[in-house]
């Protein structure tokens, strides 16, 4: 059994921009440990000479010309925003007080 620590869970939550309560952190510590342990079944397989794949199709790089075209207007882009000002998305202050 691979045990993930509660500190690791909190660190990963920070990376994922999630807030976890102590109770959630305890639950996730148990569940992620179980899931990761189950995933370690893959270690049975010797994959030394196996190439990883990122998808299962034969597609290679798909290129197109980089040409500007009309997509949406600024007004449209902003209409679903929780907050906006002067044609921009507005967010709370970036630097903490």
């Amino acid at each position, binding site marked *: 059994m691979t045990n993930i620590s509660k500190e690791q869970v909190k660190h990963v939550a920070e990376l994922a921009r999630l807030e976890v309560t102590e109770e959630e952190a305890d639950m996730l510590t148990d569940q992620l440990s179980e899931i990761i342990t189950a*995933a370690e079944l893959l270690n049975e397989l010797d994959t030394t000479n196996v190439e990883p794949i990122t998808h299962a199709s034969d597609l290679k790089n798909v290129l197109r010309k980089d040409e500007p075209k009309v997509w949406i207007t600024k007004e449209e882009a902003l209409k679903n925003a929780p907050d906006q000002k002067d044609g921009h998305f507005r967010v709370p202050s970036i630097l903490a007080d």
Partner: protein
Amino acid sequence: MALFDHTIKELEEKLHNNEIKVADLVDASYQRIHEVDDQVRAFLTLNEENARAAAKELDKSEDKSGSLFGMPTGIKDNIVTKGLRTTSASKILDNFYDPLYDATVMNKLYEQSAITIGKLNMDEFAMGSSNENSGYFITRNPWNTDYVPGGSSGGSAAAVAAGEVLFALGSDTGGSIREPAAYCGVVGLKPTYGRVSRFGLVAFASSLDQIGPITRSVEDNARVLEVLAGQDPMDSTSAHLAVPKYTDALTKDVKDLKIAVPSEYLGEGVSSEVQEAVKKALKVYESLGATWEEVSLPHSKYAMATYYIIASSEASANLARFDGVRYGVRAEADNMMDMFKKSRSQGFGEEVKRRIMLGTFALSSGYYDAYYKKAQKVRTLMKGDFDKIFADYDVVIGPTSPTPAFKIGEKTDDPLTMYANDILTIPVNLAGVPGISVPCGFSEDGLPIGLQIIGKHFDESTVYRAAHAYEQATDHHKKRPQIGGANE
């Protein structure tokens, strides 16, 4: 006979002969929704005013040539619809009433004059096998409302089974079209990776996601895929390949068909009822002149681990876009970082957070090679299993799911038990090949069982041919659910 017991082709004839109007089809849809949807709970959002207006327009039109002309359809709520609320069944998109554009599949449906009846419930961001992870409510199985409809496209399969729409669109990342189709006794196809554009599909796991049709018959399914399939400049993973006329494949017999049956698909973990139903189906194929042999998918036991590492890793990256800045729900906070965290923590449900956590862990520094890269290598081996079988056989056949639908609440305590439900559908997504589920019988409790037919890359024609031959030789697809729970 209810209108939706007819195929699209039959309804088209009725429209052309002026026996019915498009308004009648749209009426039939909303009438049925008003009758049964308080029990089935398939719909998150209805599009009634627009749908009735569209029906009126189509009824005035001289040109009735669209191949889905006037056909009422339901759309899984992770497919973006212009001006029509799109939530992916997540509270973080609760207020997303006014999306800016239609997904490519929607434009294709509209070009053929289909009508959108509404948006269908699902597991939040398509993460789940039962619809119990919806941020809103649980859709019920029309065959017995105490049971789950399957997931994640549970609303889509339930709406088709209950006769609320003629067909529906779903998406399938690890079985999310085929498993609910099996549980609800309808036909659901996951196309080859790259067959259908995903532009406008809310991304879950980009190397696995595909959109596909859920219908009552194989013929309707082939007809809808003809509309959906094709290259799209807006999705660079969509393939530059001509779209065959899939309905033409249905007229051919299966006398020459070589079927492979993986022993792993009829072994431990698969219920005896399901095994029996599949063995009976193989007898049907024998009687039609097809041959089958037992084969092995040696890496299938690694599918679940491989899938949950890869899909969760991709999801953790894809779901980074939900941050409360450009659209969706924002939580109040004094600074930006807290706003991100609070918006995401309040907006996402438990399963979505668990997978983001798992994926972020698997991609994090020090663990990437051990988990993510390892899973990508095992994926190569799994794809190789299929390549090897398809060198000698036309299709692979087995069950869609190890059991029929389970009871609501039965598997929610333990994520791993729920994940194990997808073991027979996941390998298909990892290998990128097409797979369909068709009804192949009922359990003792009267719940549908699904037969899974898997084909070669871009060979949906053979999958449809095999599915149609079986369907026409059996009666399972003709049964209809009596909506209601065991206690009602």
